[in-house]
């Protein structure tokens, strides 16, 4: 599958980054976090609707430049510096997506490229002829008032938007219980997959977002139980990130999943350098007959789990990229096949240094789609970055 970057004059500021506004690989188009920013990447009017409109206009321009349209968008994650703006952003989004919305995950971030950028909207579109199906199961009745779907299927792919412990009426229960909320969120993922004709066996990539990074510990128990019977060579990739806000107040964990209905078992590859190699959690996973690889958030820790180069922003980033390279090579691919990076940073001001490291791995002319996100906590307090990637072979 050839990888084609999509460049736009309006997004000329990407020229100096090892990243592209969007990358097309086969039918899939991966779009970097679009911002309420001008052609220099600086924030425009601070009104949440204005920034959302600019971001969605740019998303639309990118899609059209790639030969697609808004209806092709299947998956969105919007990151917000203040979650109280999510409602306004979704209202704006309703005008762009109409009756056939993508799976949409809305979460908080501590910041993006520059102060004043209040929203970052990254997306995946499927430009093929296959019908698109937006899915809102009855268990998610509360979502029907919103211009978003709980899941979206097109071609072999199913994108499940960030699931929480919300009941059908939207109430989050049980309150204050990380473990029980993770169980319910997993059940909600299962319900969405089933409605889309997929199962947990089709899941490649899990990203979980946590209101308190300490809440990842009980959620890890849930993960290990849910995947207990999955052989390690067939495990999915899991990335867990602490973020300042989730979908609704009271939600403690939110799970977003990518599944691939392509034939064959799920193939997990985990280099010996990755310390979680003996758990049902891969370095990167794909279907045997599929081409999309979900790569777990790579971190600066050695094979035993010790943090490497503590406090060294640049070398921690290099360490993460080296792990991504190992994973894609084990899948028979190369760094040129990486189509999307979502880099989570303990201090979002680090994005510039991380992208400087990224230049050693990615072409300035043809970098992946890339969304830097400020996080409140990564798996270990010593990590400065956790870098999630998708690749297409």
């Amino acid at each position: 599958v050839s990888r084609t970057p999509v460049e736009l004059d309006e997004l000329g500021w990407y020229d100096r980054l090892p990243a592209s506004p969007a990358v097309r690989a086969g039918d899939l188009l991966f779009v970097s976090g679009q911002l309420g920013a001008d052609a220099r990447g600086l924030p425009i009017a601070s009104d949440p609707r204005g920034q959302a409109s600019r971001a969605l206009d740019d998303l639309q321009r990118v899609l059209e430049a790639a030969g697609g349209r808004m209806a092709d968008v299947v998956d969105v994650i919007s990151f917000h510096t203040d979650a109280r703006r999510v409602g306004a952003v979704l209202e704006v989004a309703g005008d762009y997506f109409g009756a056939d919305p993508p799976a949409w995950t809305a979460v908080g971030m501590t910041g993006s490229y520059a102060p004043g950028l209040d929203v970052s909207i990254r997306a995946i579109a499927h430009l093929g002829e296959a019908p698109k199906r937006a899915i809102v199961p009855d268990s998610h009745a509360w979502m029907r008032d919103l211009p978003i779907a709980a899941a979206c299927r097109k071609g072999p792919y199913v994108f499940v938007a960030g699931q929480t412990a919300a009941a059908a009426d939207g109430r989050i229960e049980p309150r204050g219980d990380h473990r029980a909320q993770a169980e319910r969120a997993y059940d909600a993922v299962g319900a969405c997959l089933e409605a889309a004709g997929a199962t947990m066996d089709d899941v490649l990539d899990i990203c979980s977002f946590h209101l308190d990074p300490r809440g990842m510990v009980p959620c890890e128990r849930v993960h290990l139980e849910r995947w207990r019977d999955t052989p390690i060579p067939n495990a999915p990739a899991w990335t867990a990130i602490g973020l300042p806000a989730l979908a609704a107040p009271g939600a403690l964990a939110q799970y977003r999943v990518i599944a691939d209905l392509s034939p064959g078992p799920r193939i997990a590859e985990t280099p010996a350098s990755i310390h979680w190699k003996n758990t049902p959690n891969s370095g990167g996973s794909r279907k045997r007959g599929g081409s999309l690889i979900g790569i777990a958030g790579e971190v600066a820790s050695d094979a035993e789990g010790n943090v490497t180069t503590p406090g060294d922003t640049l070398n921690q980033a290099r360490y993460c990229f080296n792990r991504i390279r190992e994973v894609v090579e084990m899948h028979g691919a190369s760094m040129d096949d990486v189509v999307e990076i979502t880099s989570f940073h303990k201090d979002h001001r680090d994005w510039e240094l991380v992208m400087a490291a990224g230049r050693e791995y990615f072409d300035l002319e043809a970098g992946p789609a890339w969304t830097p996100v400020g996080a409140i906590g990564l798996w270990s307090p010593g990590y400065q970055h956790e870098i999630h990637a998708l690749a297409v072979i």
Partner: protein
Amino acid sequence: MSDPTRSRELIVNEDAAPGAPTTAVRAGDLVFIGQSPTPGAEGREADARTQAQNAFAALAQLLETAGGDPGDVVDVVTLHSDSRTIDAVLEVGREALGPDFPAWTPVACSAQRVPGRTVALSAVAHLGDEPKQCITPDTIKWWRELPASAGCRKGDLLFVAGQYGSDADGNVNTPGDHAGQARNALNRIAEICGLAGGRLDDVIDLLSFHQDPRWIAAVESVYLGEFFDPDDPEPPAWTAVGMPGLLRLGMLGQYRAIADLRAVTEGGTVLATTAAPPRDANGSVAHRGDPEAQARAGFELIAEGLAARGGSLRDVVQLVSFHLDPGALEAAERVARELFGDDSELAWTAAGMTGARHEGQLHAFHALAIP
């Protein structure tokens, strides 16, 4: 560096190690510690424990220069870049601050003033001869395992460390219920005020941290309806900010109070002020997206509050500020230099927050002044 007419002394540690506070302002018996005007070294390679050791060593040094020692510390607020490093810092503090522990409020922040910092420390010490009274009631006896007192009184001032919704053994009560936890925490503040010989009405200042800023509105009715009279002409200054993590998993709110036991009768020792952002006719925050204008409006409100009591910004001795994006802090610093003056005697500690009371609010300022 000192102003004899105001008996104010500024002590600056020019080569502070990573994590260390840099500034002390002495006003009478009180010493206020913070990070400005010199923010200090980056020190990305220093781990949380090392930075905590630096912080407490520098605190001791600043106090020594001011004529005191760590035993005089009555209040500490520590801002941690990761909630999971709080315990390591508490253990360092156990060595440095004991055995009569100050009120200590640890909270995780979303960013530090200086990248690579793991901890920032803001503190108040009282150098007077009065006895220091450390108070931890039985209702929260789990605090006795912490290197912190729930309440610490010296002279007329009582500092109540950030209270949580917890039972006597430290279990979070009313899990997931922000208002319920607030009610419990405010009851503890009232109890500690009583044990110190005061009452809730002596509280002049409340600084609250919330794991999700969207809940602040829900806490407001508990605060103003049940504990404080909304018609009180001089209600406590209340600064409420969203922060990414509190002491223990499951704690949703943390409420730090200052009571001045002389406030009602004699006008008080310390003035506490906060700055709610100005809002337009629709109730939306004014100067949207403009960190400089919002900072100016905030400081002007603090100045108005001080002027109403015969003071000015020159009286501010300690500022703790919270910023939605630390990049916007520079704008606040520019405005502060202009309004406070280059020679201000001010201990200022800044950190990132996840959100303030109002959507669109870029800063929250908490100021203590000595008139």
